[in-house]
């Protein structure tokens, strides 16, 4: 344990030393490098302004807001069931996972709980969203580093998962399937067998990516020891998800929170990595896809019988109150603070999205790195623009 702590501390000292070098050694004329808003290395329209001194970044700032859609304002003129259609589009690669915390928040305020079968199916679809989301990350990671092959593997296998989600919900990207009190429908016939076989393919895909990318010397040399985020910094910036667990924080909301979902009913592991560098963040995500396939497989085998919808009124009025519910989404902690004043629609919804916090650390972590590392660090932090801008 102490050895691991020392390793993290050494990496931190190295990053601080790089920072000092920038300030003292190199007295050259600076230049400003503008990456984005439209740039192949950014997902969507995130603009990074970096002030360089030679090859090193002295100051960097992400400039978001090119895609802000004002969902917090829009929720105030929607009814509760309509809000899920909006929040679907926050993190568009893991849409179903966005609906769940909002629905759980509304259910908490109403005192309703979904039937056991609905909770299981929710968890299954939640984990399928994670797999669809993170498998794209794993493919895209290669592209950021100049390796084109992994992305084809990723798109091939993500398609199987999207087909499953489409088969169950009718929507490939925006299922809008979660309802207050349960789910719109039960699983289609043949879903269980099909999902088992897809999970096998996905585990195979993880092996392929691990052999292809993670064992690669270039990949390792470009990610190991790069962009180190120590534990305490990660926590106070509110980093969550794999970014936090890659800094050695053994905290997963799926395990540590008592939610009416099925994660605690099956056997799986929380993956952590002590290093806190880019490699650790990528590695944790890869392992989490494996764990997700395990969760899905076990949940399919233990799927309880029964209805998928509790008895709720046709017109939903949520009693007065406030609730915060967050879940461990593919990108990290996604939460909704819902304020209800007894109306058909929420009075105020604060959307706590993972990427907003994850990206707010960029000015800190980019200080002192070299220009090519900007891209790998951003890629390993993994953000979805819709999740920053909301």
């Amino acid at each position, binding site marked *: 344990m102490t050895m691991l702590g020392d390793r993290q501390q050494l990496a931190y000292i190295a990053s601080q030393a790089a920072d000092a070098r920038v300030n003292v050694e190199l007295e050259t004329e600076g230049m400003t490098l503008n990456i984005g808003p439209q740039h192949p290395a950014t997902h969507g329209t995130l603009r990074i302004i970096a002030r360089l001194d030679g090859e090193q970044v002295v100051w960097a700032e992400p400039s978001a807001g090119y895609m802000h859609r004002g969902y917090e*304002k829009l929720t105030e003129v929607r009814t509760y069931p309509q809000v899920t259609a909006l929040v679907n589009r926050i993190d568009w690669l893991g849409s179903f996972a966005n609906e769940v915390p909002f629905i759980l928040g509304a259910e908490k305020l109403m005192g309703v709980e979904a039937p056991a079968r609905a909770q299981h199916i929710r968890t299954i679809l939640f984990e399928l969203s994670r797999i669809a989301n993170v498998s794209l990350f794993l493919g895209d990671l290669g592209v950021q580093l100049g390796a084109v092959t992994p992305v084809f593997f990723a798109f091939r296998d993500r398609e199987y998962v999207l087909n499953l989600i489409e088969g169950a919900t009718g929507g490939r990207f925006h299922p809008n399937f979660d309802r207050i009190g349960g789910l719109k429908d039960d699983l289609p016939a043949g879903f269980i067998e099909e999902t088992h076989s897809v999970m096998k393919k996905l585990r195979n895909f993880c092996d392929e990516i691990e052999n292809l990318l993670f064992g690669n010397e270039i990949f390792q040399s470009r990610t190991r020891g790069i962009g180190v985020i120590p534990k305490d910094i990660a926590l106070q910036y509110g980093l969550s998800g794999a970014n936090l667990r890659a800094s050695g924080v053994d905290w997963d909301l799926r395990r540590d929170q008592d939610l009416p979902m099925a994660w605690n009913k099956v056997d799986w592991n929380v993956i952590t990595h002590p290093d806190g560098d880019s490699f650790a963040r990528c590695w944790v995500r890869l392992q989490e896809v494996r764990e997700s396939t395990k969760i899905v497989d076990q949940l399919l085998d233990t799927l309880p019988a029964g209805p998928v919808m509790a008895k709720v009124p046709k017109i939903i009025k949520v009693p007065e109150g406030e609730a915060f519910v967050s879940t461990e989404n593919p990108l990290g902690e996604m939460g909704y603070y819902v304020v209800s004043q007894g109306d058909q629609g929420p009075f105020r919804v604060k959307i706590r999205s993972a990427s907003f*916090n994850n990206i707010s650390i960029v000015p800190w972590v980019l200080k002192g790195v070299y220009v090519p590392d900007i891209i790998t660090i951003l890629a390993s932090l993994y953000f979805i623009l819709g999740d920053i801008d909301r």
Partner: protein
Amino acid sequence: MQWNEEVSPLSSTTDTTEAPRDERREAELARVVAALGGNVVDSLVKPNDDMWIRVTADTWRATGETLKSLGYTYFCFLSAIDWMPSPFGKGEDDPTAPPVERDTTIKHGYTGGDTRFQVLARVTQPFTSLGINIKVDVDDAAPVIDSWSGVYAGANWHERETHEMFGIGFNGHPDLRNMYLPTDFEGYPLRKDFPLLARIVKPWPGIVDVEPLPGDDSEEGEAS
């Protein structure tokens, strides 16, 4: 509807029959309140749910520092709530009809409040996943409060967002530039008296479609 008997029917009122206890959260809140002392105006525990406290405005920064030292090292979010009900309702008014007068009496949520704006933050203890929601009243005439960016580094961006969306200033914040809006944007979009323009310039198509759902016994067609 064969599952009717399996699921208890929904009650819209909170059940006060047995009043479940949550000793873990109650003990935790007592520890927090003891550490904060006179800063706490009001506090609330909802069993097996969450904790809320409201603190005085001049001790906002000190509250953050105390909570951090109590193990709430994970910064979740910071935002604000405008408690005034929107004078535009749901934005579903007929633009040709005379404007509707709406009751804009302020009705506060948990732990009460005295002002229209409240800043709301949430910090969490990692590992135990116990979170606490902290509210603070912000003076209506001069909505300014101390910044948390020196306490929790992550508060920086959240305060910038709150500043442009609600017009709440943060003393000691390094850089309160707009994140999303153009620099010369006028108004504060998330305030309730800021109209949702998309609903103003074009009538909401839903106003012609409203018809009661079959078999519904709740009242229909009310103004808000």
